[in-house]
């Protein structure tokens, strides 16, 4: 079987598990929503909220990413499926891409909801001219986050205390995504008078990040699985 076909198989399996278990719907989305509401309580001034809305969207996304990554590898670990995948000789690169794909799909759904929440709660406005930049930001940032999440999820899968280890490892690494995506969304929304054109260079950063972790993660995932499980 081709690597791409196996990756699609893995992604479809993960999304099917999500469809049955509804962890994203019943736990992650409410968690992200509550986080956004808490931000609103903490920064209870409409002009402040509107100004910082892009950063809050991505902070809530990062918190939710951790929950999604832990869930993604918990389903592999609870009955030894990850070992079985290894014994079955399933290509680790395909596992990496498949799990990243499924994670990206869930993250994308989450981000759309968070954006909607920001519009409703924080009074953020999406000008028509910023839609393309906004969508491009969501796509590139999501790809980067999904690849990093899968890589570090695989790294910590076999460790005890992985729940606390994962954020310690992931947050410093995804800082460029947080900065780049926040600046790009600020441009797309015109927050604080930032021009639309200022957002596109950040897309370059997000794209480089996504490609680097897409390729590097795929190459590193096999050896990581061998040592961590």
């Amino acid at each position, binding site marked *: 079987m081709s690597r791409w076909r196996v990756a699609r198989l893995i992604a479809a399996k993960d999304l099917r598990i999500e469809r049955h278990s509804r962890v994203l719907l019943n736990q992650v989305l409410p968690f992200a929503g509550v986080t956004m509401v808490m931000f609103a309580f903490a920064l209870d001034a409409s002009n402040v909220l509107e100004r910082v809305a892009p950063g809050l969207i991505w902070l809530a996304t990062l918190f939710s990413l951790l929950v999604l990554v832990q869930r993604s590898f918990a*389903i592999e670990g609870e009955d030894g499926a990850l070992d079985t995948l290894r014994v079955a000789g399933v290509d680790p690169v395909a596992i990496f891409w498949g799990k990243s794909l499924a994670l990206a799909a869930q993250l994308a759904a989450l981000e759309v909801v968070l954006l909607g929440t920001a519009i409703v709660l924080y009074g953020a406005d999406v000008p028509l001219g910023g839609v393309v930049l906004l969508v491009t930001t969501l796509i590139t940032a999501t790809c980067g986050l999904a690849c990093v999440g899968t890589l570090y999820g695989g790294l910590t899968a076999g460790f005890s205390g992985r729940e606390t280890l994962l954020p310690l490892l992931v947050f410093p690494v995804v800082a460029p995504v947080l900065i780049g995506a926040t600046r790009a969304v600020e441009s797309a929304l015109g927050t604080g008078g930032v021009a639309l054109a200022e957002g596109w260079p950040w897309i370059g950063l997000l794209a480089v990040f996504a490609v680097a972790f897409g390729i590097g993660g795929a190459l590193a995932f096999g050896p990581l699985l061998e040592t961590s499980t």
Partner: protein
Amino acid sequence: MRSVSAVMMHDVAPPVPPDGAVVDLRDAVAVLGSFPVLAGATMRVDRGEIVLLRGPNGAGKTSLLRLCAGLLPLERGTGRIFGLDLRTEQEAIRPRVGLLGHRNGLYADLSVAENVAFWGATVGATADEISGAMARLAVDGRLRDVRVRSLSAGQKRRTALACLVARRAELWLLDEPHAGLDATGRDELDAVLRQAVAAGATVVVASHELERAGGLSDRIVDVIGGQVIDASQEGGS
């Protein structure tokens, strides 16, 4: 209901070394952390054999199975599975090996059919092969659409075995396979193993249920303190 032979023998049998050894370990040493779980294991299993690993808890039976599956690195000695080197050719060995350990390797939130279909699909099994595997292990009826989370321990075990059949494993490494099965399930499992062997598979079973597994096996190998005592090997370690 299809036989395991019909399910498994869809491909031409892959090459086996001329001397017929599927498992060939010589003075194999494996370490977990700093603890030597296998301290010089010499064992040979020929194609079509059912071999029982016997020994007390912590003797190294599970480690021996994991070594053969390529999950545990070989520190010293030599090890060949299907004539392939355990150190350098793990990628070629693994797809031909099925390991059913203490855990079943199933996804709790997927149904029985979805699990078997997934594991079968990883090796490109057809829909017929997948339904044949489910039928052989009797998990195709009312259990078909039940989520694994809701199954009994025995039903989970049968589902895991159906996945193994769908995966077309040639070397079956089974750790306490009878655990959790009722009398009927045990008889069915034994029948499945015999059919798998008739179709060209090789089976290594670690079990404490000597009466049951001993009757099934062609040969018994003792594992004690990380040492393997294989009566068929001259000077077995």
